[in-house]
């Protein structure tokens, strides 16, 4: 509020000179979503199916959070320029961090996105619109540009090759999704392995590996835990995406997998002086002793046998 007439004059003069010098420009203003229909009828006509439509219809939404301009910003200059993409927020022209900043204005509310600033995707400049398509979604719930597995395979072709193997989690068959185990928006440091890797695998609510959300019989707690599974995680022995080997094991024969850790050599294991080697009674020439789990059938943990024999 300006008080005296003299001061009012000085402020007016200052504003006049600033406008003349081009320092101040009239800020673009909000025109409302109805104006967008003229040039973008195919988007507007079906927009009521889009979850973002609610921003347009909910009462009390400020214009900067409502309808088309809620994401694309005030459109008066875009309209005046007859569709100049540079005169509004066009996501195809934004840098990845700007895309992230825009979407997080509303979508920071989910805990699942709490780690998005440090996620491997954000660090790799993979922003929201790399996977999500707001106007042409293939999936009605999360507005993905394609089915989730195809979005992920688009960059992770090596993972597609793993899921093409005979033993695999049923992602291609539609029973599971990548996001059952991974959080593409970034995950907290894992509480298995050494915490630093893997980076996008989301722990279950019980602070366990996501594998145990389904494989509940392996979760324990057991009187006798197999420490490798609890300390280094399931991936110590299994290939979670897919494998050519039964039970998605890392090796075609169980005994080679076991012997690689149970070699009795120093520096490893809970006692730090070697993980127990197989006993002298285990003659590896005998096929029974090459099928370790035929006797050690409770290999994930047991309540009745320290050696997982029952």
């Amino acid at each position, binding site marked *: 509020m300006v008080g005296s007439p003299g001061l009012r004059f000085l402020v007016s003069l200052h504003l006049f000179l600033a406008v003349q010098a081009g320092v101040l420009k009239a800020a673009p203003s909000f025109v409302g979503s109805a104006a967008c229909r003229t040039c973008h009828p*195919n988007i507007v006509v079906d927009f009521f*199916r889009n979850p973002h439509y609610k921003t347009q219809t909910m009462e009390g939404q400020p214009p900067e959070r409502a309808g088309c301009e809620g994401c694309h910003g005030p459109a008066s200059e875009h309209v005046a320029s007859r569709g100049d993409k540079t005169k509004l927020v066009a996501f195809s022209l934004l840098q*990845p961090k*700007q895309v992230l900043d825009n979407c997080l204005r509303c979508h*920071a509310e989910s805990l699942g996105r*709490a780690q998005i600033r*440090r996620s491997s995707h954000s660090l790799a*400049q993979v922003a929201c619109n790399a996977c999500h398509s707001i106007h042409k979604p293939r999936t009605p*719930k999360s507005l993905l540009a*394609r089915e989730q597995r195809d979005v992920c395979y*688009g*960059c992770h*072709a*090596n993972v*597609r*090759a793993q899921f*093409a193997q*005979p*033993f695999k989690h049923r992602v291609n068959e*539609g029973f599971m999704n990548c996001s059952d185990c991974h959080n593409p928006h970034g995950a907290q*440091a894992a*509480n298995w392995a*050494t*915490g*630093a890797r893997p980076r996008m695998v989301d722990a279950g*609510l*019980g602070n366990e590996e996501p594998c145990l959300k*389904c494989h509940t*019989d392996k*979760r*324990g*707690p057991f*009187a006798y*835990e197999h420490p*490798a599974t*609890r300390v*280094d995680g399931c991936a*110590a022995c299994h290939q979670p995406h897919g494998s*050519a080997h039964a039970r998605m094991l890392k090796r*075609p024969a169980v005994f*080679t997998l076991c012997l*690689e*850790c149970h*070699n009795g*050599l*120093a520096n490893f*294991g*809970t006692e730090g002086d070697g*993980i127990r*080697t197989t006993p*002298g*009674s*285990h003659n590896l*020439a005998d096929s029974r002793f090459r099928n370790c789990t*035929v*006797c050690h059938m409770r290999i994930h943990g047991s*309540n009745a*046998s320290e050696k997982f*024999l*029952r």
Partner: protein
Amino acid sequence: MSEKPMKKILLLASFAAAVLLAQQPVAPTNEPVGEARGRTFGNYNLLQSWELGYRFHSVGGSQPKYRSDVNFGNGLRLLGSRLSMNSRDGHGGLFDELVLSTQGLGDDPYEFASFRMAKNKLYRYDLLWRSNEYYNPSDPIAFGLHRMDTVRRMQDHDFTLFPQSRIRFFGGFSRNRQQGAALSSALFPDLLGDVYPVFSDVSRTQNEFRFGNEVRVAGMRINWLQVFEKWREESRNNQPARSPGLDPTDRAVLDSLANHEPYRGTTPSFRLSLFRETGEHWAVNGRFTYSSGRRNFVFDESAIGVSRFGAASNRQVAVSGDARRPVATGHLTFSVFPGKNWTITNHTGYHSTRIDGLASYREVENASLVFSSADFNYLGIRNLTNTTDASWQIRPWIAVHGGYRFSDREIRSRQVQTIDDYPYSLESSQNNRLQAGAAGFRLKPAKGTTLAFDGELGRQSRPFAATAEKDYHGLSARFQHRTNAVSLSAMARIFYNFNTVSLSVHSSKSRQYSFDGSWLPSDWFSVDAGYAYLHADTATGIQYFLAGALNSGQTSLWLSNLHSANLGVRTSFRQRADFYAGLSLTRDAGGQSGGAAPPLAGFLAAQSYPMTYLSPSARLSLRMHSKLRWNAGWQYYGYREDRFPAQNYRAHTGFTSLLWTF
């Protein structure tokens, strides 16, 4: 823009969405019927798509392996469906959005239904229901004694009250149930005895209830969630008939065996989170969780038979106890944005897991009675992780990032052994430290083209397992080029890990290369193709006994050269007929490792596992009406192992269906 080009673009877009597909089952059909606008009833618009069809299959060779890998059968199926109802003005009665999609209902081995119902500002409800029939012969594992033929059904319900308001409430329920038949094995007359197959009736159930609340106060969100998880197992193992066991030279005979290990477990968890994310200068979020896993168990086994010395042998074992596993975690993430194009984040995570409990053990063998306390082994894991990452978009065409990771882990264990009625406790602890650095940059030399290079170098002191990451480095490069008609990508990645200690060495090397491309020259033709080569080899120092003699200083070698290729061609004739042909080929070429393997046939056979898995497919889709399509498809699965042909199979699967969309 005129309507016709727009329509063409829409069609192109839907076509583009159909390419780059994973090699998924040939049904349900992906081809859209047309540009569905739905039907309007009052304030609601209804859009539906239903595909009803018949599946058939024919298998030659190993039926169990086919069931393990593919498992499609014969019969009528609702192959896929989608239904959505939306209020046109955002002010519906009971709901504003209703979405239902299903797949494989009827009797497919992979079924799901996804449902959402929501009313703006008032509530949102999500349901996901899934069912998987899984058969695993596991012939190469445990002599095929651990087969399983089970069904797992899972459901997740999530309800949010006032989803768009400052105060939100959450509630949810999840259920996971696994049931079916399986085989297991048991030892008799003692734990050094022969191996006997036993039948297993699997029954496992997990129920999870959760509720919570979130409040926005002074720019912060405070979110808490309480979870009660209950799980139980009631599986029973039985061998009711006389069984000679696996070893024909062992004279022991098992007449009957039954063991039952019912347990009840509960994991109440609490999670508290605070977060603030404005995107201007800084963001912070913290998370604390505590879960107190607890499980009460009983193990009861009775076995009757004849011992290896020809005497009658009866054994009964009873174990009971309870196990506890409290897990506490804390995470704090702080992000700062010093400039418009800068992001620096620091993340600290702390985890503590303690597994402890009490158990008693009782074994009755004929007239002798053994009673003792089972020596519950304690395992504690404490892990502190700190990660700092920074990324900087220097120019629109170049961005760099780097980071440093540090983990400090302590593992404590207590193993108790009772010798002459006196328990000896062996306590130990060890610390690991991991330090790793990562850096990379992204280039965008032209519109639609991206080049990325990343590297990571890590060192861990005293890794827990011989094969864990210790001295590793990874490098990767990625190229992507995307235009409206062409999409090309290539990736190369290496990851080498070396663990060298005084007596043993473990090294693993993996190299992965992939190329993908799709080409969409017109609205009636598209092709996509991909090839990936995944090489992995490991060499690990081992020692083992052979006829009572210790063999040391040998190396276990394993090698995999996996080639995976996929090809898909799609063509459309005047928007009336769509034809798709695809091919997926996975071939592990195996090979001979460079080093000297132990001179034992078992090791040599386990060095590599050459196999071929081939699956061509074709699908024809004819538009009979603007809302109706007739589809037919065929998919072949051929599996061949070079060394163990007993598991080979060839299977033809097919389907025919009607797809109705409006």
